[in-house]
């Protein structure tokens, strides 16, 4: 996703934040970051809330045993912030990395994303937005420790140096951070602080391994689904078979005979109604749900149907929509001879995120307060939603961020539908903690998909082989329509997340017109890792490849020639990819072909070359060389991981069963047998990742691996079969 509400953003930027320190009872140091809440309240004419106290405000805690606890202000769900953010803080602080422990922050104002203004993960912004924040936190903590030591030794702070959680004085003195912590807590917080010169980094910029590896290899890490509380019940919900439908009546007698079932009742959903089953454990809850006999009222809701949608979308694509970008004269296409035109129509299905950990939320409601646990990308929003359902204020809901088993956007939902379901149930079970579990079937059939899209592009080619004029229509639901994000992301009737990667292309196309239609369809849609780039990069990079082929030009050289001069990151990535893949690209085995793609998203430039053959009518991806320009590389090991694995994630949309389809309002797939993401045989066998050296500000690496892989693979397939692949999923080659 790309943005967040401006109002909240502006609000946050106008607020001041400052550090406070305090000593722990045991003599340790706590460094907290405070927002200037009273000022904000004054602006709103409200009474100033009480200042907050640890734990929710702390970022660093030095324990008497020397352990340093660093709080991560956002969800860890694979992207590596649970390691990278502590690295940044620990480096500026000169903390002993072997003693650093990371923890995920609960929902609290101080943990809001410094740019978005809400606590969230999205838009590949974790490092990009919190790099400076975590550096300053570390540097200020270090400055106070040094000041404490300098005072003890009666020397100037500038005469001291720090290393591995120890302050060293000019006369050979030394003191451990843990021993200095209490005195440091009495020091004033520096208003400004000198950050390290990058040449002085000990951790940042190095290949640092994850802090959460061992616990994820021995089964000890606790995900949200693993939570176990005394007296906890499990809830599953029978959701309507057509989105938004309502329960007419239901018979729960057979369900209630299942041992361990405690209650069955109808609940309101964000749209429509459902039936909740409460049991001591999951298995009886699911057994009972299977036995429910529910008569649904399907009459009042639209029955979306993929076949009808394709037909409707393809018709729409033949007419211009709301204008996303227009420059030059698109009608120049009509001056080009038919033989020198490309007219291409593309189709992309709905896609489910299907993170490995099924969706879940646990809530205990105690009347005047509540406690919640969820692997959430949107803590601020989910906490407020739970509070609203329970009739509480957000601060009355203690919201714990649980380690999450993947997400890819699925845990960043503006309507918080999972948390609202859980809260409705918890309200009824007052005093008893309840864990709502969405089964895999609930997940695959439950909506909030990457929207289906049709693209239609008409290109007039100049005698030089370069595009002279380009007219492009994109059809698909708006992801943000009806959410608070619409005010920021929709402009001139165009949802920026639907056209990103095309409307803002880095190719220099002289006469260019992109427009979009956003039909309303009764299927909930959502951002899916790299969002609009999933389909826009596919269209752009396959068309550019087709143009290069027609021009009989090397696809890398063609791209370089067509890129705008200021597309520096893409040019750097393209150059590096060309160099690093040269040896294998020129010595391909028989029946293999190379495919090229490059794409910039979230300010990170990416280029890749893939080595593909065809086995059993499927693409076999033998090798991928990826070059990336992410600005300054904070943790090159994490970046390499994200790209190696992210290209495999991107293969999802090439899978033969990589589609969610609807017939008469009902989703036709139920589980991984019908909607099948890539397994090891489908993923690239080997991926080498090369990072462009850079001193620019870091940009994101979570989403940018995804867009490039699928166009690169079909560009290779086109060489092998002579066919252009414009309709996904890729059922057979």
């Amino acid at each position, binding site marked *: 996703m790309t943005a967040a509400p401006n109002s909240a953003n502006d609000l946050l930027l106008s607020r001041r934040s400052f550090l406070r320190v305090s000593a722990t009872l045991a003599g340790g140091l706590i460094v907290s970051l405070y927002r200037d809440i009273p000022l904000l309240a004054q602006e709103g004419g409200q009474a100033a809330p009480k200042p907050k106290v640890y734990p929710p405000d702390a970022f660093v805690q030095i324990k008497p045993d020397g352990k340093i606890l660093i709080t991560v202000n956002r969800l860890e769900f*694979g992207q590596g912030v649970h390691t990278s953010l502590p690295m940044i803080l620990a480096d500026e602080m000169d903390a002993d990395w072997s003693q650093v422990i990371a923890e995920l922050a609960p929902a609290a104002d101080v943990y809001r994303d410094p740019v978005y203004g809400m606590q969230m993960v999205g838009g590949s912004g974790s490092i990009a937005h919190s790099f400076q924040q975590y550096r300053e936190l570390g540097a200020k903590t270090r400055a106070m420790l040094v000041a404490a030591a300098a005072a003890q030794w009666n020397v100037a702070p500038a005469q001291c140096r720090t290393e591995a959680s120890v302050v060293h004085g000019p006369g050979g003195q030394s003191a451990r951070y843990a021993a200095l912590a209490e005195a440091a807590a009495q020091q004033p917080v520096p208003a400004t602080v000198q950050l390290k010169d990058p040449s002085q980094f000990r951790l940042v910029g190095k290949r640092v391994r994850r802090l959460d590896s061992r616990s994820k290899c021995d089964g000890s890490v606790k995900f949200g689904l693993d939570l176990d509380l005394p007296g906890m019940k499990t809830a599953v919900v029978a959701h309507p078979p057509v989105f938004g439908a309502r329960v007419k009546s239901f018979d729960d007698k057979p369900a209630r005979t299942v*041992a361990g079932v405690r209650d069955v009742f109808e609940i309101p959903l964000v749209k429509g109604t459902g039936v909740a089953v409460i049991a001591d454990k999951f298995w009886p809850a699911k057994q009972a749900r299977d036995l429910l006999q529910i008569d649904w009222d399907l009459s009042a809701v639209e029955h979306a149907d993929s076949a009808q949608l394709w037909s409707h979308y393809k018709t729409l694509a033949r007419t211009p929509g709301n204008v996303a970008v227009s420059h030059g004269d698109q009608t120049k296409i009509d001056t080009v001879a038919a033989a020198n035109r490309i007219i291409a129509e593309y189709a992309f299905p709905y896609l489910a995120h299907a993170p490995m950990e099924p969706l879940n939320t646990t809530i205990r409601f105690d009347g005047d307060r509540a406690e919640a646990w969820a692997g959430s990308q949107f803590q601020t929003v989910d906490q407020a939603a739970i509070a609203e359902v329970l009739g509480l204020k957000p601060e009355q809901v203690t919201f714990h961020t649980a380690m*999450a088993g*993947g997400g890819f956007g699925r845990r960043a939902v503006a309507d918080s539908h999972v948390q609202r379901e859980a809260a409705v149930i918890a309200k009824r079970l007052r005093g008893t903690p309840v864990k709502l579990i969405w089964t895999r079937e609930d997940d695959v059939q439950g909506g909030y998909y990457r929207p289906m899209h049709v693209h239609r592009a008409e290109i007039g080619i100049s005698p030089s082989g370069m595009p002279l004029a380009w007219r492009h229509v994109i059809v698909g639901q708006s992801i943000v329509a009806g959410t608070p994000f619409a005010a920021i992301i929709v402009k001139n009737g165009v949802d920026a997340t639907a056209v990103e990667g095309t409307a803002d292309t880095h190719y220099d196309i002289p006469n260019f017109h992109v427009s979009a239609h956003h039909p309303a369809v009764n299927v909930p849609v959502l951002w899916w890792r790299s969002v609009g780039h999933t389909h826009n990069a596919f269209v752009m990079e396959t068309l550019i490849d087709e143009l290069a082929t027609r021009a009989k030009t090397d696809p890398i050289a063609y791209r370089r020639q067509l890129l705008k001069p200021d597309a520096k990151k893409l040019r750097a990535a393209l150059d590096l990819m060309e160099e690093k893949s040269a040896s294998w690209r020129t010595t391909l085995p028989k029946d293999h072909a190379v495919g090229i793609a490059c794409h910039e998203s979230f300010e990170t430039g990416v280029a890749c070359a893939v080595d593909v053959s065809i086995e059993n009518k499927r693409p076999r991806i033998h090798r991928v060389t990826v070059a990336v320009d992410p600005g300054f590389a904070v943790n090159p090991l994490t970046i390499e991981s994200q790209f190696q694995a*992210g290209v495999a994630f991107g293969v999802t949309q090439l899978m033969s069963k990589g589609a969610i389809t609807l017939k008469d309002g009902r989703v036709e797939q139920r589980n991984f047998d019908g909607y099948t993401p890539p397994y*090891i045989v489908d993923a690239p066998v080997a991926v080498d990742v090369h990072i462009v050296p850079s001193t620019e500000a870091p940009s994101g690496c979570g989403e940018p691996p995804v867009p490039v892989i699928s166009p690169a693979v079909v560009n290779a397939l086109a060489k092998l079969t002579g066919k252009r692949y414009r309709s996904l999923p890729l059922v057979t080659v």
Partner: protein
Amino acid sequence: METYKLTVNGQPKEVTVDPGTPLLWVLREDLKMTGTKYGCGIAACGACTVHLGGVATRSCVVPVSLIGDRPIVTIEAMAEDPVGRVVQDAWVSHDVVQCGYCQSGQIMSAVALLKSTPKPTDTHIEASMGGNLCRCGTYVRIREAIKTASQQLP
């Protein structure tokens, strides 16, 4: 409800549950061993993989009533298992995990592979690991870590 005597990671356990309850949920909810994961419930993702009588098995589709006297080994025992420990160390040294949710199952499948085929080829790896989904897509490093573990095993 029936009472079953099970051997889990060498320890005798007794549970009283519905005979149709899958082993996965007996482990997770009755024995509070949550290292074994629920991913799909239809043996399509491998997150729930355990060793049942020495064979890598999807515990989400094995009713507790069909286990009999076959020993059950889970991820929680791998640190004490000579092959399991080597595989876990290889996973850590390669920084394989991302979200980590599938990795218990991946490691259980990898250990079973290396116990039967200590020097696996890529074809062996793809065959044995072919049913374990990783949505993050960590397959390249899974492959490398298995090869590293293989080199370190006798």
